[in-house]
């Protein structure tokens, strides 16, 4: 019974964890510009992330190590230093994007410009981590995150054509805007396969003191939770494709995306879009802040934990405190939140090989995972997806920058 409850809770958490500013922005952009044509990227990313999240939980449960612990022990400090810098850099940009998402949600409802919200929002995020415990943060956000199911309801109300949906599952190249199409495909992959998720998930496994008995729970949570999360992202894409694309609206600001639920759901649609954006970004922002503090502390061997009182983990607390306020400054100076989001997601795809390949080596090392080693299926799925994302990113990011973002 306890295990069932845990699975249910874990699945709920994953829906919140999956849906963030990156997922919403890339799906909205993809649907409004290319209809159903980019569905394949979302599905491919989801399959890959299911395998990766399961691995991150497995290594925590079996080896009693978080992913970062294991990387430092196995690969030494020099390699890890590079990895740490890359991950902190990406976390910084993504956190700024998430804060931007919350600020935009507040702007949609109040009309007050998003730049003004950046510092108050950063303060609230900080306060929640400072005072809250791991369980409160995870479960609270998870329950609120159910509001995102509004996109599923909207999809049903719009009656999408199943044959067209099916056609979108096969990768195709469009007649025009090929460079932008590939850029958005890369951004989708980067948004779905977020590295912070794995470090966070394996740290969470340690915080909850997982052992080998949790292998099954972990597998269920990863597979079902990530799939549910992905369904919501799919619905964002479908709604954007059905509402915005026929009108010729191409999302290049959140203001435009905010209209997509007003057609099927009226005023409530508008409010629930803002609520979903705000809550999903809040959940992700909390996770990224904690993740950064986790990995820095784990690299240097400091005491860490979301439920530990700040006094008992002073350096850990200092990291997230400084980090969240610094990241919010990118919004204070008024960078375009949507462009920053899409760009950070594509950049994530570039550094994925650096993050994922050491991870795969560990998952095939008996000293860490014993008999729970990876099988060939999980290895090949992950290698294929990461390689594809990397190659596409290397080609499409320069093209996108030349075209002027």
């Amino acid at each position, binding site marked *: 019974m306890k295990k069932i409850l845990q699975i249910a809770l874990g699945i709920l958490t994953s829906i919140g964890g999956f849906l963030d500013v990156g997922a919403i922005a890339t799906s909205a952009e993809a649907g409004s510009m290319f209809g159903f044509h980019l569905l394949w990227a979302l599905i491919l990313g989801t399959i890959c992330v299911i395998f990766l999240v399961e691995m991150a939980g497995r290594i925590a449960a079996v080896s009693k190590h978080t992913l970062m612990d294991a990387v430092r022990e196995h690969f030494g400090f020099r390699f890890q230093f*590079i990895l740490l*810098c*890359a991950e902190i*850099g990406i976390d910084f*940009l993504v956190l700024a994007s998430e804060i931007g998402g919350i600020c935009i949600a507040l*702007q*949609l*409802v*109040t*009309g007050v410009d998003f730049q003004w919200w950046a510092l108050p929002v950063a303060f609230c995020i900080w306060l929640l981590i400072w005072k809250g415990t791991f369980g409160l943060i995870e479960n609270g956000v998870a329950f609120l995150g159910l509001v995102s199911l509004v996109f599923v309801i909207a999809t049903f109300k719009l009656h999408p054509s199943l044959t067209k949906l099916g056609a979108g599952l096969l990768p195709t190249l469009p007649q025009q805007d090929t460079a932008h199409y590939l850029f958005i495909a890369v951004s989708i992959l980067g948004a779905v396969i977020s590295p912070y998720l794995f470090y966070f998930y394996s740290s969470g496994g340690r915080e909850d003191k997982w052992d080998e008995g949790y292998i099954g729970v972990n597998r269920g949570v990863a597979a079902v939770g990530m799939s549910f999360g992905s369904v919501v992202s799919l619905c964002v894409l479908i709604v954007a494709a059905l509402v915005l694309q026929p*009108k*010729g*609206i*191409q999302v*290049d*600001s959140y*203001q*435009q995306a*905010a*209209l997509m639920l*007003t057609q099927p759901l*009226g*005023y409530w*649609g*508008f409010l629930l879009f803002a609520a979903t954006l705000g809550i999903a970004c809040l959940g992700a922002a909390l996770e990224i802040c904690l993740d950064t503090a986790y990995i820095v502390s784990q690299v240097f061997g400091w005491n860490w934990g979301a439920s530990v009182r700040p006094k008992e983990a002073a350096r850990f607390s200092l990291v997230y405190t400084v980090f969240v306020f610094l990241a919010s400054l990118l919004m204070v100076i008024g*960078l*375009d939140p949507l*462009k*920053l989001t899409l*760009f950070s997601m594509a*950049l994530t795809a570039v550094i994925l090989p650096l993050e994922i390949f050491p991870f795969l080596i560990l998952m095939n090392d008996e000293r860490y995972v014993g008999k729970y080693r990876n099988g060939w299926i999980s290895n090949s799925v992950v290698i294929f997806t990461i390689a594809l994302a990397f190659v596409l990113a290397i080609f499409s990011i320069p093209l*996108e*920058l*030349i*075209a*002027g*973002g």
Partner: protein
Amino acid sequence: MRSLSLASLALLLLLNACSSKSSADESQELETITSWVATAQMAGSAWSQGNVPTVYAQQTLSQAQQKLHKETDTLANSSTNSTRLHPILEQLRLLESNVSQMAQAVKQKNYTTMSQHLKQLSTQKQALSTLAKTVGGQ
């Protein structure tokens, strides 16, 4: 050291991507214009039906007006052959003023003028797309 310089390069590129927009071809400009006209149309009619808050409609309409203004300027300056684009530019100026009047109507909560402007907008939009086709066909 190398990772540091790479990181700063990435940051430079990022700032560039987020701040400036370099020259793009006409058809892309026209796509952006169509997108913002459609946004103004959708936001305006959503406001008329009470589906979005007034403050949001006002902001979105003035954002659309700014974008239209900017894209019109880019088109006017970028093209070597501006006589060819002249009818389009003319139409765009009309569209822009219509959108700014829509923003006014939202501000004054005047639903009757809004519905007039919306009707105008949809004819103007159609005229624009016809013009774009004839110019693009040359």
